[in-house]
């Protein structure tokens, strides 16, 4: 199967996944207790006012009818209006998507930049002091919750040490975003690095036992070239899968980091809309998450194939 056909098939699968997600999320969020009208009205929620809001939002209709209307709008590219902000839910999500993409993208980049050299050193110096240090120190870091790491980084680099970075916020322009997202991305990376280091180190050690490495060494290739060109390239394939799975989790799991760094990302939007029962926004966020996770796995498969010629699309 060609790459194009493979991608087309996976995208078609994505449509099915997204459809399934719409059904699941729609009925789950509507069936759990809680009422957006009562949340909005607070203690002043009289039955009359609640009824008026339900009528205005169409929540007085049976659930299947509401779902049908939702799907009718969806196929026209309309995700409905946020019940609380009275603005299109799709726009709310798309406005916040870049923040989360920056966070995940930069976080993934930092984690690779940190993990690859560390894992390579650890594998090359197996059972030596650097190996033990590299295996233990990040693992200790993994034990600290991300909100604590976030606050410590803010205290160290945004408040007490010459105020190198802003205390939260997204910044403006490419440089502004990069500046503002440095600490949040580093927090993400510090959570990923121990997992990647362990995975990559194990793969490298396995690869180092392979015949082609022995051959490369016997040909007299420099150790650095053996390590990077032959060892790392083969070992990193499994780590890409680990990274993809981690990113898949991160898509919905950046909430704490977004809160600590006051980032207007999709995680915050998701939790606030769930708590307020802002149904259209919950549905829009779930939809975007589903698409993102499927795309991340698709990209991971394509990269996997590009790095390993033995992998075929089928």
């Amino acid at each position, binding site marked *: 199967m060609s790459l194009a056909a493979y991608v087309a098939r996976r995208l078609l699968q994505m449509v099915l996944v997204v459809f399934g997600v719409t059904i699941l999320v729609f009925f789950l969020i509507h069936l759990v207790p*809680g009422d957006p009208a*009562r949340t909005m009205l607070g*203690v*002043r929620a009289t039955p009359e006012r609640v009824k008026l809001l339900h009528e205005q939002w169409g929540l007085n209709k049976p659930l299947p009818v509401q779902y049908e209307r939702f799907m009718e709008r969806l196929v026209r590219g309309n995700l409905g209006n946020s019940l609380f902000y009275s603005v299109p839910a799709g726009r709310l999500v798309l406005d916040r998507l870049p923040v989360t993409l920056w966070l995940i993208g930069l976080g993934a980049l930092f984690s690779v930049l940190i993990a690859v050299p560390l894992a390579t050193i650890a594998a090359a110096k197996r059972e030596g002091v650097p190996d033990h240090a590299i295996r233990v120190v990040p693992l200790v870091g993994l034990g600290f919750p991300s909100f604590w790491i976030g606050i410590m980084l803010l205290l160290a680099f945004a408040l007490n040490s010459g105020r190198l970075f802003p205390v939260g916020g997204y910044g403006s322009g490419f440089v502004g975003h990069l500046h503002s997202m440095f600490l949040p991305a580093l927090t993400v990376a510090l959570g990923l690095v121990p997992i990647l280091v362990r995975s990559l180190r194990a793969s490298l050690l396995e690869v180092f036992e392979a015949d082609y490495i022995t051959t490369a060494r016997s040909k007299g290739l420099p150790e650095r070239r053996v390590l990077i060109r032959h060892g790392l390239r083969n070992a990193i394939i499994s780590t890409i899968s680990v990274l993809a799975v981690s990113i898949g989790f991160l898509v919905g799991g950046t909430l704490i980091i977004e809160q600590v760094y006051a980032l207007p990302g999709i995680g*915050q939007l998701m939790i606030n809309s769930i708590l307020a029962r802002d149904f259209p926004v919950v549905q829009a966020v779930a939809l975007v998450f589903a698409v993102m996770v499927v795309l991340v796995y698709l990209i991971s498969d394509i990269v996997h194939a590009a790095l390993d010629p033995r992998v075929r699309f089928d």
Partner: protein
Amino acid sequence: MRTRLAISILVLSALAAVTVGTIGASGHPARRAASTPKRGGTVTIARQEDTESFDKTNVFQNESIWLLEQINETLYTVTPDGRSVKPWLATGVKVSNGGKRYTFTLRKGVRFSNGQPMAAADVKFSIDDARAQKKGWGYIDSAIKNVQAPNKSTAVINLKYPWAPFLADIALFANGIIPKNFAGQTRVEFYKHPIGTGPFMYDSRVVGQSVTFKRNPNYWQKGKPYLDSVKWTFVSDQNTRELQLRGGQIQVDEFPAYNSVKKLQSTPGVKMFLFPSTRTDYMLMNESYAPLKDVHVRRAISYMVDRAAIAKAILFGFGKPANSFMPPQVPFYDPHSPGIQYDPKKAKAEMAKSKYKNGFDVEMTVGAGASDENAIAQVVQQALKSLKINVKFRQVDTSTEFSQLQQGKYQLGFSYWTMDIADPDELVTFAVDPKGGGANSFFTGYTNPKIIKLTHQAQRTTNRAQRQSLYSQIQRIAAQDAFMGFLFYSPFRYATSDKVHGFFVYPLGNYHMEDVWVS
């Protein structure tokens, strides 16, 4: 405070002194701004919630209301002590026709931010529109028969019957004055970026992130506002707000955590304020659950709640036990109201008088993640064990909690109230008049014909002394009936940069940003 009145008064006085002392230590900004106000600059206020809407007639969220009050002003406004109203866009009012006709003289030279002069036709349009909002604040204007605009500078409001809270109602933000016919826009378009006579005008908004207002060049108070603009940002994490304040990224931190207050009071460059508020926290007891229908059981439960200990542990001492369901900052609050205070002996005596001497099981609805509420719930659970009342928690998320309390699907629960008007009527009707308030007596199902009758009398009694007597009776009966556990009064907490001057939060929660300046 049925018993131990003297002790309670002592405790209340001591806590009040602590609160006032705290404010005094930091300095009342409105009174201590010794140097001359400086024009220019921006203030950024970080808040725990984002703004939902600018539609003053339909929004119930405080974080929206406190913002839109910078744009929309009312004919009368609340005084800084929260206990009265004073002329604002009107210069005065004449009451005639047996208290049913209010003739307002409008202030001269008032213009909307679009330059259009404010006239009586705008007043008529604004109030007619506000009272037509059935799902919003329309109910507050239910005493109004009609609004007239006999000439440009006079607005007349005729009432269906004499209505004592009328001027307080007219000072409600929902009755703010906007240009007639929404200045030619649709209602929806208008409230996306409303026009008003207030010190600031809409500049920009990033939904879910920030709202920025800029100076209204046509503002009627000469020389004000001092600031060029005000920005409100949404920063949900308390620690981050605090760090942003210390880092100079924001100038005002809304509601820092109680456990940070002491630290902020001694942080260089920071002023920590505890403004007296109208917030009152309650423990709700649903009378549809048979044991809680028994007044002796309700009293017993209330006697077992150690409010002072809760205020000390949960509010770090920055609150005081409640002796009435009405807060001290509201007119006609009675400091001698015998609201039940902690007394285990009396609790046991009341329990012995009840039909449930051998105790019973009861479910307490608690908001998941609401740490203060969970802590109070645990204190109550432990305390009620000695009465053989077995409290089981039902943890639900806050939306579900709201929903179930409001629908009476609970047995014990928690809620609170902050005043919207400088008159007790809104709260009293809501809390003790099951049909009038439309909330089944604060969702408790409490019904006492005598207190309902007194509430209606107080609504139509304009004599101040007589109203005080009526509201004192209402508070006394409510305390004796123990229809809720009145828990504690707590302040509004704000930390500001020491470069911010004139920032003062009223007991109703609103603030006048036109008085604020930065050095």
